[in-house]
């Protein structure tokens, strides 16, 4: 399945829900273009949600590193949410897990940005 990207916003934080494959060619290019577009319009706090991502290859890993570096160089943050085990394993093998901030829970990821985001309302 080709990569599909859905954009959501919570306060100043943009969440990209990634569904499908991030592989050499179309998938990697689409991710690069989308993050670059966000940076161009001034977004700096970005979460990539991998819950629906079925496959990542070394090209996809390379794209993550490039977007992480580009975002950081522009004063922003790129964080990873809900990494499937097989993708987490790829980052572990290449000693990259420590390079990224990763979260299992969306609220934790949003809160990690501090005052820049809007704290989700607690019920009850």
């Amino acid at each position, binding site marked *: 399945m080709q990569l599909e990207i859905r954009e959501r916003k919570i306060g100043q934080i943009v969440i990209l829900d990634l569904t499908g494959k991030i*592989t050499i060619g179309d998938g990697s290019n689409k991710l690069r273009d989308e993050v670059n577009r966000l940076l161009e319009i001034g977004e700096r706090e970005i979460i990539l949600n991998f819950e629906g991502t079925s496959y990542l*290859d070394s090209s996809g*890993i*390379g794209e993550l*590193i490039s977007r992480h570096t580009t975002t950081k160089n522009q004063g922003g943050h790129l964080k990873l949410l809900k990494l499937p085990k097989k993708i987490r394993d*790829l980052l572990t093998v*290449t000693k990259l897990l420590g*390079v990224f901030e990763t979260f299992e829970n969306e609220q934790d990821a949003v809160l990690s940005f501090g005052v820049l985001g809007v704290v989700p309302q607690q019920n009850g």
Partner: protein
Amino acid sequence: MMQAEKVVEITIASSLELIDIITLTADHFAKLSGFDEEELYRINLAVRESVANAIEHGNKYNAEKNVEARFGLTELRLSVSIRDHGAGFDPETLPDPLDPENLLNPAGRGILYMRSFMDQVDLVRHPEGGMQITMVKNRPAPSSPPPAPETSSGGEGK
């Protein structure tokens, strides 16, 4: 009696759109070999990386140069060979992607994944030109049959 090797050979043009033809075959052989879902992903990835390297770095997207894949399945192992028709390279000269200096390089991890996920990986210059990567994965041991129910008398209460 030892069974003959089951072989499939596929040739594709140097196009990223055609990689899936080879990785789908890899999936089929991995299933035939008895690997679980996790190993299926790893074998698929190792094959994808080798074909992508052949297209990108070997044949440099030259549509007139092919990538040749050979799958071989025996009772004991699955082997996959991928050959390109590029200039070739010395694998010893490749930068180590785990070196802290290279950690943030966007490229250079494909061979590391192949070596991590397959049991044996050999990169050689093909005698007729280009590089050939041969990867071997030992098949899992067949699961033991359930123990036969006890038929002898005896046991508790005696």
